[in-house]
């Protein structure tokens, strides 16, 4: 069986899902036997090569998130939403109750720990009006909820995808 190609990406999330992915521990060796990780936050590539499975952590909060998401969607056969931020919006979604200006002011100017703050404008992507789960922007083929999804859960789902199967959803977990 030809080795599958996996790409992972981290959008508006906390990296927890990737940590959980690394928590696969010795199963990473089994994974390496079945698949190549062709792109990920810890692999230094600028553009996504074609891949079988794309794993997305994090929701879409800014223009860059959206651009990266669209690229990975185009590059991957199966796009998987990994974790609650990608699937439900989760914590970043809290900002949707406020205007972007209020959120930025609170974070960069009003925050108690800052004396003379300013909202950064150079070389940072624009915020989108609302943080949204990725399936509100692109077609998603599978979801692995969890905050973060446990390594076992990731292994179960990714393992199934590598074998060309669909893992049953009878053990969902949102937290």
């Amino acid at each position, binding site marked *: 069986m030809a080795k599958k190609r996996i790409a992972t990406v981290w959008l508006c999330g906390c990296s927890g899902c990737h940590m959980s992915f690394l928590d696969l521990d010795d199963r990473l060796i089994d994974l390496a036997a079945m698949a190549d990780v062709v792109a990920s936050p810890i692999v230094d590539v600028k553009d996504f090569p074609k891949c079988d499975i794309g794993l997305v952590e994090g929701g879409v909060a800014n223009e860059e998130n959206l651009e990266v998401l669209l690229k990975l969607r185009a590059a991957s056969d199966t796009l998987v939403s990994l974790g609650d931020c990608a*699937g*439900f919006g989760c*914590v970043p979604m809290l900002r949707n109750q406020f205007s972007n200006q209020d959120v930025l002011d609170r974070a960069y100017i009003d925050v108690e720990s800052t004396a003379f703050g300013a909202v950064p404008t150079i070389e940072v992507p624009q915020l989108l009006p609302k943080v949204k*789960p990725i399936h509100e922007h692109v077609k998603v083929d599978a979801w692995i909820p969890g*905050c973060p999804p446990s390594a076992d859960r990731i292994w179960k789902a990714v393992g199934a995808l590598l074998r060309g199967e669909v893992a049953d959803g009878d053990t969902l*977990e*949102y937290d």
Partner: protein
Amino acid sequence: MSNVRLSINEREIDCAAGTTILNACKAHDIDVPTLCHFEGLTDVGACRLCIVEIDGMRRPISSCTTPVENGMVVRTHTPRLQTLRRQTLELLFGERNHICPFCPRSGNCELQNRGYEHGVDHVRFDYLFPKLPVDNSHRYIAFDHNRCIMCTRCVRACDEWVGAHTLDVDERGGLSRIIADQNVPLGESSCVSCGTCVTVCPTGALFEKRSAHWHGRSTKEFKETICTGCGVGCRIRATVQLRQVGELHAAGGPDNNRILCEKGRFWLTHPGSARINNVLIRVGGQFEQRDVDEVVQECARRLRSVSIQKDPQRVVALLSGHLPLETLNATQSFMRDVVGSDRWVIADRSNTQSTRAALDIDSGLPPLAGLKELDRADLFVVIGANLERNAGVVASYVRRGVLHRRARLLKINPRHTWLTDWTDVHLESERRRDPMILAAMLKYLIDMGAADAATMPTDLSKKLKRFDDDDISIACGIDATQIKQMAALYAAAEAPMIICGRGLSKHGPTGLIGALNIVRATGNQTADGKWRLMDLALQANTYGARLFEEPGLNMHDFDPHSADIAFLVLGDSQREWPRTWLQKLRAVTYVVAFLTREREDVLAASHAVIPTATWSERGGTYVNLEGRLQVGAPLMQPPSHAVDEIAFFQKLSNEWKAAQDAWDVPPLPAACDGVADGALLSCRDDRDRAVDWTTLRELTEA
């Protein structure tokens, strides 16, 4: 009741007419998913999760609000229903802001569980992201509207069970929201802080603030015990993890009551002061950590002193009525059988001796009403009691009676409390006039022919005839027409209930005797021979302590100048004592306090302090205000520093007495023998008990 036959999922099922389809399913182990249904609350069909298909109906309908009909053909789990349910759930998730990872209910949330069951791994509808507030104003409860699914379980529980009706729904459709009173913050509302809304909320919308910092209800393992808050004796269920007690819930109990009051729900888990972790002995002006044996030896030395040998009554014990019967039993036996002193008392603010005398405890336990009778009453007379503060669950029963059964409420109390606004008649009389008022009420009942005066001495009835409204107004210090009105309402009621608080017995037994007289003379007895009168026991085992031989001490006339040693066995008791008691205590030569937590007033008067187990670490027997025996189990083991009171007294006895006088802790009073957990102790038969006419005589002489 007629029976109905219908088919559910191709199964023929018989059930009683009037049952809902949902309940018929439940009775036959067909698991229909629900969210707004809660056992014991009226169904409203708010969540649409319990929808079923019925042959001949165009659309699926909610099974929780549809009664069964003969010949119905019902299906509960067709693919179409499952699809609709999943969509409904997705709409619920998308309608507000659910962020499970930091929600205190995650792991034990009904919405979440329904989501799992229906494979909701993402929401296909656009999120609405409404901007909703979190109401943090309440002392114990937080209300996060972001997680509310508008099932209205809280609204219904607050109304139907608690009788407070603090919560309701504002606005309509997508704008609807739960509000308190006229949309004020929960902390400033009429909320009685019973936490029932938190208990019934399926999501993390209503949660206990404390649980934001720890597991709350995330574990599903519950342990059961008895609330030690007051004499009602509610059963409570608690989650326990890592030696921490989580949310406390009502767990059935005396009348399968589903509610607790603020004391049971929150006070037990919000102790006001620090735990005492060491045996302390006063050296000079300071406490020093010492070994418990030093206290035992010091007590033994003092007990051997000439003055106590000559007069054992110089040893006194003040016990908290919140302690289990086992501890009370051992202590009073130690006092009586080892020391030879009958000067022990349940140290609550009630006048123990006057209630004992009025109820004539020496001739057996009186048959008094319990919670169940409250739910059948159509009139309440509340005398000398602040129900809201001292017996919140009783207050709830009264409120829901007034609210839902239109029961009448009469109050005799100088103070204005919340319930006062709900009264039909409120006598704002002076407390010491209570006996007169009750006697006058009995006189009017006799005049109206509602009370039996056959046994009344003739001279008294002659005197009474000459006694008119003006005389009564003078004797009672209050307009007699109000008393007459009360008597008329009482006479007209079918199941009137008199609820007596400690205020009634404060100045002696005649008040309570007067109340009993009314019940007796009007024959207000339940079918099983209980008087329709409730005597509010302030503490969890106030009633249990009545099983012991009458103590020779009453807090009201306790004279400490004649005491050399005082044992204060107080457990968790936190309520500060009146200053007069403390002043008295300071005159006692040696005071040993058994406590769980720091209490400045008691510590200041003590010479030695023994740390003991707290309510959640001890099990034991309790007898509630209707004489129901209940056994609570410890939720966890006591910490190693906690000293067991019974073991202490055993040790002290061994240290003090020679081997031939060795004392063994006696078994519980015989009345408890063979009484099962949850059963009533046997009471005396009061059916032929005569009215005590002296109260009326006192009226004519006043």
